[in-house]
């Protein structure tokens, strides 16, 4: 299950360009963008309109 070869996925990451997906505070994405880091900000909305009961039912339906 570990990453390919003897290196491991964390060490592979150390040798790669960081490409970030940001979910939440838009200021974190803005900071990365300012530094010319590849970042994509998710325009996230609470699932099931913020209704937690409904969100958890949906998650169960999706098998997560």
């Amino acid at each position, binding site marked *: 299950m570990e990453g390919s070869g003897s290196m491991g996925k964390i060490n592979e990451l150390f040798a790669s360009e960081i490409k970030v*997906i940001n979910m939440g505070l838009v200021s974190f994405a803005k900071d990365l963008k300012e530094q010319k880091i*590849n970042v994509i900000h998710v325009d996230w909305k609470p699932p099931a*309109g913020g209704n937690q009961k409904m969100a958890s039912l949906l998650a169960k339906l999706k098998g997560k």
Partner: protein
Amino acid sequence: MSLGLEVRKGAYYDSVTLMRISKEVKKMDGIQEVLVGMGTELNKELADNLGLCHGGIKDVGPSDFFIAVLSDEDRMEAVVKKVDELLNKKQESDMGDYTPPTLESALRHEPSSNMVLISLPGRYAFYEAKKALEEGLHVMLFSDNVTLEEEKELKDLAKEKGLLMMGPDCGTAIINHVPLAFANVISKGPIGIVGASGTGTQEVSVLIDKLGSGISQVIGTGGRDLKKEIGGTMMIEGIRALAKDPETKVIVLISKPPDPEIAEVVLGEVQRSGKPAVINFIGSDGQLIHQYGLVPGWTLEDTASKAVALVKGFEIKDTLGISQPEKEIEDLVAQTAAGLRSNQKYLRGLYTGGTLCDEAIKLISSMTKDVYSNIPMSSEYLLENIHQSYKHTCIDLGDDDFTVGRAHPMIDPTYRLERLMREIEDDEVALILMDFVIGYGAHPDPVGEMLPGIEKAQDIKQKKGFGPCFIASVCGTDKDPQSLEDQEEKLRKAGVAVMPSNAQAVRLAMKILEAIS
């Protein structure tokens, strides 16, 4: 007085954006109080406390956005216009690019993404973090309010997949020299850090930079990683990765004292790495660390200094003094003590960094145990009312008690300024000690935000003939967007004694307290 409410169903904005907008709107003419926020129970309670108890607010749901305003006359139209202007302006200037609605769509848009930074409300964070790990992505989880069980599940999954699961409640990381969330701009170098404490890790990385060395990677784990229930999973994975990393020559670990059996596992792992290491289990006696042939760091500064000594092949010695010439410090202490009246006896530490506050309390307790706090060394020194200082007090303003309904004080200094305004009116206060954490994620001008309080204290001093003295340290580098030099210069101009580290700022305060006792 006029009370206005505007509700928009199903519109989501993040808490920092909304906090900044609230602050802007509050500056408008005729506005007494305003709250621009999502309709969470917490925000509704906060609106109530602020006197914004509009009848319609109870029907607002957590996915609804609302603006509640108390003003001298009906100014709702102007406020809504201003809020829209600010929201639109922010979106344009922040992210002009495509912003997909879900993690899956982001990944379809950018399939080579390898890191997900999550700062969503805690109750949603677990689900998104788990999804990210399942997609094979490394995760940094800034959010708190994630349960221990959820943390364990996430970290076990990450370990199985060989991925980083930094957090929950992970405030800082620097991966491949990219600062994530709250982090400073640090030179490249051979020191790899795994840290379970946010500002502690920032302070060590900053001091390594000041000492002319640099870092390879900074891996954050979140504060609970070394608890028995989690088992140090991410710290161990971090050590293993740094062990294999050719750029890392020296390893540094920073954490509150772990559960003893976890400490043994972690230290064993470092020993097996074969790389020299400095371990700062904040406040521990270092005995166990010595047993594993590793170097204990006594303060954050001492940790940084020993790590740099290991890199440069210097003798390993304790750095537990003040770097300025002794005579200079003696004069400063004598001069400060002479300006204080006999009833001015107490120190008030107003901290935004939790580990920096903890370090201050531990250092001062070698002189006097009577240091009251919201995070005291023992429960008898727990403040009865956290909003009211008592005798010597050091408070961690970033603790959950203070951040309910508002952003962290490193982003929003409002409460610290209010608190400072009260401390300077207290005739028994001799010294005010403050940290200023700069870097990415932090406020664009933390010193500037506190200057009104410091200047008011100087006015009071002029009028009354006495007042408190200020000591501060700035956690940051000259490469940070706020610039260390600028921030320090502003403090000096305002008459504040600026020290090069938190430990040294605390030591200067202790010397002055000693001189007046």
